[in-house]
């Protein structure tokens, strides 16, 4: 069959409904997808924030204290709270998706999704404990 049909009596007009620009508002699942995609912007923001922190530390005491003062400003605090919420959302949805992409065999058995999920959360918890230990020196 030809890909570019001519409209003739034997090939009448097809109806081609177009996809709305706001298709992502049609279903909660589509909206969740767009938010998940958008959350990468906040991941990028935290990376930039970390680099700014490292630069301030490298520049010395005064720069570091200026950075802390800037960070305590209401705008930066608000941005960081929103970013943190999106980061949690990003991590959880990423973990949910992981077992679909990862197929791990132990012997002849395929590991069930909940085992992979549990392993991801365990790794997250372990990493958080290490960071907490580094920060508090406890």
């Amino acid at each position: 069959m030809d890909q570019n049909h001519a409209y003739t009596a034997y090939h009448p007009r097809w109806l081609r409904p177009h996809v709305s620009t706001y298709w992502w508002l049609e279903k909660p699942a589509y909206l969740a997808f767009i938010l998940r995609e958008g959350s990468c912007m906040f991941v990028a923001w935290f990376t930039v924030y970390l680099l700014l922190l490292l630069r301030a530390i490298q520049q010395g005491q005064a720069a570091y204290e200026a950075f802390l003062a800037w960070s305590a400003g209401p705008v930066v605090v608000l941005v960081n709270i929103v970013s943190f919420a999106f980061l949690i959302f990003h991590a959880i949805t990423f973990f949910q998706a992981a077992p679909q992409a990862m197929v791990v065999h132990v012997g002849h058995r395929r590991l069930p999704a909940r085992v992979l999920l549990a392993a991801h959360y365990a790794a997250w918890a372990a990493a958080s404990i290490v960071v907490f230990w580094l920060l508090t020196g406890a």
Partner: protein
Amino acid sequence: MGDRITLQVARYRPEQESEATYDEFEVPCPKDWVVLDGLNHVKDRLDGTLAYRWSCSMGICGSCGMTVNGEPKLTCATFLSEYAPGPVRVEPLRNFPVIRDLIVDIGDFMRKLVRVKPWIVRQVEKPLSAGEYLQTPDELEEYKQFSMCINCMLCYAACPIYGLDPKFIGPAVIALAQRYNLDNRDQGAAARMEVLSEHEGIWGCTFVGECTKVCPKHVDPAGAIQRYKLSAAVDSMKSFFLPRGA
């Protein structure tokens, strides 16, 4: 109440109208009637001009896929009573051009399907005298889930990427390519990768995941695509770090 339900059926008669319209029909709603039974009642008793596809009415042929109250469904496996007291809106599958009423053109899917060679590809055929290609239950298990696809195209109707970019090769085609790649008798993975590594192949997918949710056969096309991406990425890393082969 309870024994009848209203169907709002999308109509498109290209010789008369340039937009879809809706006709309402009141049909019986016994608890064992599916949406397809309602449409058959309309066709037999109320309006013989209604056009739609169906064949097996048991979830195998994959031809009665339609949009029921906004969701892609096999109409032979969707009970009318689930939507009581109604109304039930029946529309053609989304993301495909409509030919008439509830019938869509599936040519795009069929052309894409053959591109990935959905059959067992052998470099060298064994002679007949060597017997069958034997397979263990574990080897069967590797691809069995993906072999359950009935080409009903509900996943295409659910996929916003396909709706926005019809060049995207789509969920079912990639799942079926995986079905043969994971079959230990097959040797066609490299040929399929040529088609699927195109921009409109696996990388077109942004993992919305709706294809897997609507699949009536639990094929998990989204999983197939992400696994494909993972193996494609590992392959390209290998060829980068080990250019002469491992």
